[in-house]
């Protein structure tokens, strides 16, 4: 596939993709060596860790997020860091917590044991329930250190999604500041390994305005084209008739003020002109 793309679009097009594949291959090798290295180390608990080393520049830019990892994980991270930098000095390792994912072996009861496939954030929250069955929102926030809106989404995915491994009181779709969360001992699922999906981030109002603006930017050429097309056939047209014809032709909504701006812009660019005597009449300019 990659070689096909390379043939079709040139080496520069695929260089990043190739870099990504190389990263994955190299990471596999590194992990084998790391496993051997671990055998000589004494590390607590029974965590299995896999690290992918992503070369900056090949991958999209991810903003690093600070969170509080459990001691055991930090221990593993440090061990890996020492191991890796011992092999490649001068490199810089940055943990991308947003990309992490875990498989948690969870015993809801003695018999009811499941593997939960979750993101690192979800894992941090769930691990807290090892200590206590009942946790208020504030406690979770301060202990995990996950950013507020991120944490709300994480809790939503665990307590309001399809697989509700924890329960929240009061019940409801949104996470409030005073909600408490309870370990769901009666959790049932027909599968053994369950993937709990992260909830998609909602568009912020700012992004929404941005998108609308961009959509309008793209559409303005269509508006311009419609106006010019109409004026070209009609030669002379009153403002109201032109506007209603444009609305008939366009398949998307346009604010009247925006439409007028397009007309004015076309007048300024000499595609059409306003009648010198009749203020609301336009002429097509060939």
């Amino acid at each position: 596939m990659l070689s096909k793309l390379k043939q079709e679009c040139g080496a520069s097009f695929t260089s990043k993709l190739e870099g990504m594949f190389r990263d994955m291959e190299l990471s596999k090798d590194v992990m084998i060596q790391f496993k051997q290295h671990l055998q000589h180390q004494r590390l607590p608990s029974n965590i299995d860790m896999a690290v992918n080393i992503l070369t900056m520049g090949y991958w999209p830019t991810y903003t690093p997020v600070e969170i509080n990892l459990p001691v055991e994980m930090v221990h593993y991270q440090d061990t890996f860091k020492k191991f890796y930098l011992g092999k490649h000095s001068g490199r810089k390792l940055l943990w991308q917590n947003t990309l992490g994912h875990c498989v948690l072996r969870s015993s809801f009861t003695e018999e009811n044991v499941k593997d939960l496939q979750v993101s690192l954030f979800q894992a941090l929250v769930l691990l807290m329930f090892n200590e206590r069955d009942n946790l208020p929102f504030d406690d979770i926030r301060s202990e995990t250190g996950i950013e507020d809106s991120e944490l709300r989404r994480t809790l939503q995915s665990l307590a309001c999604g399809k697989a509700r491994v924890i329960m929240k009181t009061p019940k409801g779709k949104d996470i409030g500041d005073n909600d408490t969360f309870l370990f769901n001992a009666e959790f049932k699922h027909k599968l053994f390994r369950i993937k709990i999906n992260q909830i998609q981030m909602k568009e912020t109002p700012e992004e929404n305005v941005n998108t609308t603006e961009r959509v309008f930017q793209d559409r303005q050429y269509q508006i311009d084209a419609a106006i010019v097309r109409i004026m070209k056939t009609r030669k002379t047209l009153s403002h109201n008739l032109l506007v209603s014809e444009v609305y008939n032709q366009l398949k998307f909504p346009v604010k009247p003020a925006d439409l007028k701006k397009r007309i004015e812009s076309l007048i300024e660019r000499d595609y059409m002109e306003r009648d010198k005597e009749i203020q609301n009449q336009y002429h097509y300019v060939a």
Partner: protein
Amino acid sequence: MPPRGKRKSAKENQTAAKKAKVEKSSETSRKRDDISKPFSVKKCKVWFEEYADEPDIIGPDGIQKLCKDLHLDPEDIVMLVVAWKLNAENLGFFKFSEWSTGMGSLQCDSTKKLQSKLKSLKSLINDPVVFKKMYRYAFDFCRNKDQRSLDIDMAMEMLKILLSESWTLLDPFVEFIEQSDYKVINKDQWCNVLEFCRTVKSDLSNYDVDGAWPVMLDEFVEWFNNHPKM
């Protein structure tokens, strides 16, 4: 026609005054200058050179001097009428070609003769059709020739000269423009201001939101209606 305000400096005013003094002495010699004498091309050229700052051009200083001799405020609307009659291309400048043809058609070859015509020139703009022509001319006259639009500051100064007597909403309109983001005004907007001032009542009661007014004027109406009345 107003010389651009920025160019007025104390020093320039001084030299202008000096020039005016010199002018006075020569004026006495021209006492015999009879308004009823027929137009002479030669005299017209001599008259032009009296004010010319450089060959073939009367610049801002010369125009200021001319205004002084005519006992006119440079911002008097009649100066705009003169510029229009001369079909002058650029604000603050009269080319000799413009001068000779324009003054020829006005039959003027001296300051005195021009002065005697001022009244009838000024009365020209009472005709709405003539005024409209001149109003449209003013846009291109003031425009920086490498731009399609007119700088907003210049446009407002010009509007004050043109419409201060006829449009009661001029002050609010200028205020609206000053608080807006508009940096320039295009010809269509400019021409519509005149239409607006002629057809829309000062209380905006007959203003049609769905009309063909440029968005600038729609915004002005909205701003005006949401604004404590002045």
